[in-house]
């Protein structure tokens, strides 16, 4: 477990879904307002469109870079990888999917890290959507549970930034039980009276929403994020009608009482910092 200092500003790998920032060229067209945005301006604005406020998706490393002071953090269990409990094969073996991700430098869909946030030591887990849709299997279950245990032991606040399609199908019911494993650890964190802030980003659905993402002392979301249990396509197929505009978006959840606040990315760190100050100091 080494200290990582990231001097370079976060860059986007791109290519993973239309809401990602493309790397080529000095400028890009915002997919929300269609305005031309300089990449440098976008970076300075934490990948939020300066014209319309559209939040581009960012990866887990960039997220940690934005939240920790000076981009300084210690990564836990960087080499933890799934052993493929079901020996699962679909279009290709799950083992091959995992191996392909290792080549991209990723071993699972979460980075668990510790470091200072406005000088306060915190644990942050950031989910990585690029890794099989940010899905939760045995590795995410274990890494987040350990992060919760670390938070209890050190009495350091916990922040989890979610971006996930839910439980990982390729690990079957083993994935499903990770919902319990993490939720019960959060019971102990709750009893220890150590703060936990859940940050929901685009998209957070399925078993991730139905476990730790909805169990924060504060549950907050970035604007416009898709948040739900069932995915919109599944619902449309079931009820055979189009879903209303804005359904399952952050603002919809706020209106229905399931989010405490919608916080813009440039305000996120200061919002978390002020909340922890309220809880802890």
């Amino acid at each position, binding site marked *: 477990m080494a200290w990582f200092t990231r001097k370079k500003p976060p860059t986007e790998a791109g290519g993973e879904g239309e809401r990602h920032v493309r790397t080529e060229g000095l400028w890009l067209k915002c997919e929300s307002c269609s305005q031309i945005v300089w990449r440098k301006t976008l970076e300075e604005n934490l990948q939020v469109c300066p014209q319309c406020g559209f939040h581009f998706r960012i990866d887990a490393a960039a997220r940690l870079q934005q939240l920790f002071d000076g981009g300084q953090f210690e990564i836990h269990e960087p080499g933890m990888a799934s052993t493929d409990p079901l020996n699962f094969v679909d279009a290709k073996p799950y083992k091959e999917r995992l191996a392909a991700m290792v080549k991209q430098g990723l071993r699972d869909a979460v980075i668990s890290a510790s470091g200072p946030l406005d000088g306060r030591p915190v644990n942050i887990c950031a989910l990585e959507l690029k890794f099989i849709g940010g899905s939760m299997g045995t590795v995410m279950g274990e890494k987040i549970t350990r992060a919760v245990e670390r938070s209890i032991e050190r009495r350091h606040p916990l922040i989890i930034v979610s971006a996930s399609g839910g439980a990982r199908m390729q*690990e*079957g019911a*083993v994935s*499903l039980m990770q919902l*319990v494993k993490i939720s019960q650890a959060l019971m102990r964190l709750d009893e220890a009276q150590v703060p936990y802030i859940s940050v929901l980003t685009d998209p957070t659905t399925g078993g991730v929403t139905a476990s730790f993402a*909805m169990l924060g002392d504060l549950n907050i979301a970035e604007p416009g994020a898709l948040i739900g249990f069932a995915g919109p396509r599944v619902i449309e197929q079931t009820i055979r009608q189009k879903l209303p505009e804005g359904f399952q978006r952050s603002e919809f959840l706020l209106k229905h009482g399931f989010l405490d606040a919608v916080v813009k990315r440039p305000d996120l760190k200061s919002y978390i910092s002020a909340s922890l100050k309220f809880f802890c100091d």
Partner: protein
Amino acid sequence: MSSNAESEQPAQSATPAPEPPNPAWQRVQLARHPKRPHTLDYIQRMFTGFSEIAGDRAFGEDAAIVGGMAYFRGRPVMVVGQQKGRDTKQKLLRNFGMPKPEGYRKALRLMRLAAKFGRPIITMLDTPGAYPGIDAEERGQAEAIALNLREMSRLGVPIIVIVIGEGGSGGALALGVGNRVLILQNAVYSVISPESCAAIIYRDAGKAAQAAAALKITAPDLLGLGLVDEIVNEPGEGAHTDYDEAAQWLGDAIAKALDELSALAPKDLIDHRYDKFRKMGNFFVEATA
């Protein structure tokens, strides 16, 4: 593991599977068998003095989850389970056993009530899954399920969970945090329905049989993965062939579990449940990065 069930002709599915029948798919058919005993069939046979408690005291009553006070072989217990309907009218009333948020919240209310008065909790899992509808999302079904998972882990009474039919993902799991998790021989427990899984991985919901096998959802598979504690045998060709005997065997398994757990103090019960789920899914390695 061989079983009588595997000699049973599976019921005709809506989408015929192109693959030859496999044991996993046969069990799915049995778990969904139209005559399979449901929660209320077991309550009627295993308990006396069942007094149903309705409503979540916040939004409404959800008939897809039933629960109440009852006596199990003379002992006061709280029993809660998902309830599918049998005829069309009942299926609609029970929403095909798919709970909405108020159902999970009612269940939690009942379980907390049981814990307050030191009564053991027995839950029965039998649902295709949470309800994928606008209203269930509007009323926060994800939050409701999440809260149940966290709060069940805090209850200082014995909790015995039995998967009696379809253990459909988060909707089932919302009643699934127990000191003992039993599963009937032909029941299944899965992170996703075989049809939905097939639609994703094979782009063909008709390949559900293949997906059922890949997902390892049968009782022996789950026992092998360490996700359930015990398989409860079913009579004859499956529980639907003899309700009374099925209930008798299940009752015996519950009685044994209750006896063992009743010796534990509240804190020990909480720790026991915690340790059990803490160890689930240790399928990882740590390479040097």
